[in-house]
Structures are given as C-alpha cells and as structure tokens.
C-alpha cells in the first residue's frame, strides 16, 4: 500500500523543494532587515564543500558535517556581514554577488582540496547512510512494504521535512519577537530604528549571518542528497534562482519564500515541455513581478485576508477594531 504511494521520483522532487525552501528562507531572512544579499550561492557552496570534505576525508558523521558546514558558512557570514554594513542597497547586492563569484573561482582553482571542476563525488548520501545503519541492525524496509530506494528517499524527505518544520517554526517565532521587530524596523527606516535605540550593527550582522548560516545549511544538505558537488552548482545562476524564490513568492513574509521555492521547483518538473523556455520565463517573471506586484505573490494583506476567512469560517469574527482611514 505504502509502497505504491511512494514514488521515488516524487520523493526526489519533494526533497529538492525542501532544500530550496531553506535557500528561499535564507535570502528572506537577510532581506527582512533590508539587506539584499546575492552571495547566498557562495555561502551554500561553503556549507556544501565543508561538509562534503569533512565527511569524505575525515569520516566525520554526516550530521556533524552538516552542522559544521552551516557553522563555517555562518562564520563567513559574520566576516562578510561586518564590513558589508558600510554598504547598502545595490552596493551590497553587487559586493555580495562579487563574493559569490570569488567563492566559485576559489572552488575551481583550489584543486588540491576541492578537485576543481571535477567536483567531489562519493559524498556520503544522507539516505543511503541511514539505510546502511538501519540494515546493519537488522531492519528490512520490506516490513513496510517498501523497496530500497523508496525507503531511502523516504528517509531523506522525512529528515528534510523535520528540518524545514523546525526552521519555519524558528523564524516565525523570531519574527514575532523583539528581534523580528528590530529587523522590520531597520528595513522600513534605518535612521528611525536607530533613534529608537536599536543597535543597527548588531541586528544587520545578525540577520546577514542567519541568512549565510541557513544557506550553508542548505548547501550541506544538498551535498548529502546529491552525493556529488561541483563549483558550477554554486555559480551566478544559483544566486539568481534563490533570488527568484523570494521575489516571486513574496519577499515580505516567510511564507512567500516558501511558496516561491516550492512553486519554482515543481513548475519545471511538471511542465517539462516548457523547460526549454524555462529561463526565459524566469526572466519574464522577474520583470512582471517588479512592475505589477513587487512584493511577490504572497504579502501581508493576503495573509490577513486568509486569516479573516478562516476566522469567518469558524464564526468567531468579532472584528479586530480595524478602522481604516483614507
């Protein structure tokens, strides 16, 4: 029964969706304090290479490798984030874009460690490793009526899903707190935020670092799901793809990045016949979104509208006391 429902192909796509959601959130969280970072592909690469190299060369357990990958990316985030404070807007975007390119050039050229363009193959696979451990203690997926590869991808998807739920929970709560309000205040008016006693330096570096950490985390997961990485995976086009997740889905709310990542990952798979025009469509989406709905598909008012509908359904709408002027 379960065996028929779980198609490894679909599980595979779901796992990419889940990784891309983390990437989408990584750019969202930096944007939530008003900073556009186009360097997340670079941070993703740092996370991926760190974890892959540690697990391959030093037989570090995957979990530890992934955590270390994220941390190293986070440390780079701090190192880049502090000097980047002097920059804002387009200057920051370009400097971070430059950072991403420099990282790619380093991955390509530092052949003794990264194997250059050959890439790192034989990165331990998240699912296969867990599977090996489980079979070693005598577990057989047949018990669940699953084939090996079904089971392996089920493991991958479940792990990624848990991680996603944790991350979303984490940032939803953060957004509703003093920290989230400080981010939002800085995004809306940096000078006023400073006058209200918000330490801009700290919060901007914090959000930049959180973004880098998440991107590195996603990169590390990517390495262990693909089992192979090469510098081309973390180039300019990846940076743009991550940007599109957030711009299309909605850059103001976390749900926008999630929706954007999911939609943009599933769309080319579902519409394989248009894949030839995929990048052209990406381009057009960016232009049209900026012209007609710069905040992205999902925005605050849409979410409020949703909440209202849900409340209405439940019949508990007492009115929120909203009195609009104008």
């Amino acid at each position, binding site marked *: 029964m379960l065996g028929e429902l779980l198609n490894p192909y679909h599980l595979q796509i779901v796992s990419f969706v889940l990784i891309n959601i983390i990437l989408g959130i990584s750019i969202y969280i930096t944007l939530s304090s008003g900073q*556009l970072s186009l360097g997340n592909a670079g941070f993703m690469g740092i996370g991926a290479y760190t974890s892959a190299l540690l697990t391959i060369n030093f037989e570090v357990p995957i979990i530890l490798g992934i955590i270390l990958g994220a941390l190293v990316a986070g440390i780079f985030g701090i190192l880049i984030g502090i*000097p*980047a404070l*002097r*920059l*804002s*807007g*387009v*200057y920051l*975007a*370009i*400097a971070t*874009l*430059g*950072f991403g*390119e*420099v990282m790619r*050039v*380093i991955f*390509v*050229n530092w052949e003794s460690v990264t194997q250059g363009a050959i890439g790192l193959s034989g990165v331990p696979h998240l699912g296969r490793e867990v599977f090996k451990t489980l079979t070693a203690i005598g577990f057989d997926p047949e018990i669940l009526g699953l084939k090996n590869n079904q089971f392996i991808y089920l493991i991958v998807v479940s792990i990624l899903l848990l991680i996603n739920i944790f991350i979303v929970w984490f940032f939803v709560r953060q957004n509703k707190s003093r920290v989230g309000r400080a981010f939002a205040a800085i995004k809306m008016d940096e000078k006023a935020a400073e006058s209200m006693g918000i330490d801009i330096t700290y919060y901007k570096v914090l959000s930049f670092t959180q973004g880098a950490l998440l991107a590195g985390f996603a990169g590390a997961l990517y390495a262990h799901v693909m089992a192979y990485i090469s510098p081309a995976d973390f180039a*300019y086009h990846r940076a*743009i793809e991550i*940007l599109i997740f957030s*711009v299309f889905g909605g850059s103001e709310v976390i749900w926008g990045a999630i929706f954007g990542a999911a939609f943009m990952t599933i769309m080319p798979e579902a519409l394989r016949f248009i894949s030839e*025009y995929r*990048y*052209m469509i*990406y*381009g*057009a*989406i*960016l*232009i049209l*979104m*900026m*012209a*007609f709905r*710069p*905040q992205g598909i999902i925005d605050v008012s849409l979410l409020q509208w949703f909440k209202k509908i849900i409340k209405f359904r439940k019949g508990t709408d007492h009115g929120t006391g909203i009195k609009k002027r104008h």
Partner: protein
Amino acid sequence: MLLEQLINGITLGSIYAIVALGFTLVFGVLGIINMAHGEIFMFGAFIGVIVTSVMGLPLWVAFIAAIAVTAVLGYMLERIALRPLRGKQGVSHLAPLISTIGVSILLENLSHHLFGAGNQPFRNAFAEIQIQIGSITIYLVQILIFVISVALMLALSYWLSKTKAGKALRATAENLETASLLGVNTKRTITTTVIIASVMGGIAGILVGMAFNSVNPQMGLSMGLKGLAIIILGGMGNVKGAMAGGLLLGIAETLIVAYGDSGYRDAVAFITIIFILLLRPQGLFGKNTAESGR
C-alpha cells in the same frame, strides 16, 4: 613580452571601459544598476556577426544595424522594465535591479534560441589589417578600439557638461522632481540616456567581435559582471573613472595571466571591488562625500 601584454591589456581594458561607460551613464542619471547591459552588448555583437559574416554586408552596415537594434532594446528596457517602477509608491530601490536581472536572463536565453549556443566567428577583412613594429604585431582593430573608447569618453563628458541636453540630464540626475519643475522633459531625458547607454553597449559588442573573433550568448554575463566591477572601481556615475577603471582592470587581468595564475583572472575584478567597496566606497576616482556608500 611586457609591451605586447600591455597592448593586450589596453585593448581588453578599452572594451571594458566602453561597456562600463554605458553602466555609468545609466547609474549617473537614474541611480540604477542596469544588469541587462551585458546582454545588450552581446546582442550588438551578434547583430555584427549576422550582418557581416552571414549576410556578407560591409562593416559600416553592421555598425548601423547594431546601433539600431541596441537602441530599440534600450527603449524597450526603459519602457518595460524601468518606467513602470518609477515614482511608484512602495517600490523598493532594489526593484529596478531585480527587473533588469530579469531582462538579462530573458535576453541571454532568447539569444540561445535566436543565434544558437555556440561561438560565432566574426569574419571581416578589416579585422586582419595589422602593423608590424619590430617583433610586435598590432592590429588596426586594437588601435581603433582604444581610439573609440577614448573618443566616446571625451564625447560623453563634453556632452554632459557643455550641451543643453547634457545639462538636462544632469539636472535629472540631481533631482527628478526639480528637473521636471524646471521644464526638463524627464521622461524623454531618461529614455535618451538608456538608449545611448545601450548603443554604447552595442558598439562595444561589435568591437569585441572584431578583436577576438568570438561571439557567444554567455559573453554578456561575464562582460556585464566586469562592467559592474569597473564602475565601482571608478566611482559610480563617474565617466572618467569608468575609463580609468576599465583600463586598469584590463591591464591587471592581462598581467595576472602573464605573470601569475590565469585561474584567478576572473577573481581579480571581484576581489578588487570587494576591497574597494569596503575601503573606499566612493570608488578610486569618486569624490569623498560624507554619505557615500550608505
């Protein structure tokens, strides 16, 4: 060898400079980084290839065709990707950056379909003319490229500082509202600017095609990223800075290949801009103002 490498560097640098001039013009007036500039440049190059190699027409026709096509592209860029965002409430300053990235992706992939993914040769008798000085060979194209880039820079700075249209442009750059109150047709001024910048990209495209005999859809991206680095190097919106920055980067890249590791050639530009942005956000040649970089 050093002399030859310097010539290589100056040729490359002059091309960078022309590309950067287009960037700097748009930034100077609109405060926008036009990420699609590299792709417009690439289109110019392809038009050159089609006119000369495929249709077998003379070079001057190629220039005119490239200028016409890139002018149209420039107009469409302004009309579709920039104007709708201007003066709109609640549009962040990042919106034009993102929408021009959209245009660049669109154009790059469009050219895959129109021209194919591979390299196109740019065959032209003019590109073969060479001058022999001792052991050094200089191609006429190399001299031409340098002359055109200097001429464009001079013409542009003259035009900006001395002519009425240029003054209108600068007034627009200062303050959009004030300029329109003073009777400047800002809409037309902006459109003109974007078109001129695009045309400069198109000219640079043909020159690259002639100098290197290679035109492909990916060239826009790498050239565009270099152009970005240069305007930051030279100071945003600074015409002479763009020229100097372009030459500097061209020579630096050539020298790192000649005496260092060619693998890091592409990193030179980006490492430089990261340092420039952090140490001297106004660029090497920019004026030091209190608020620059913020």
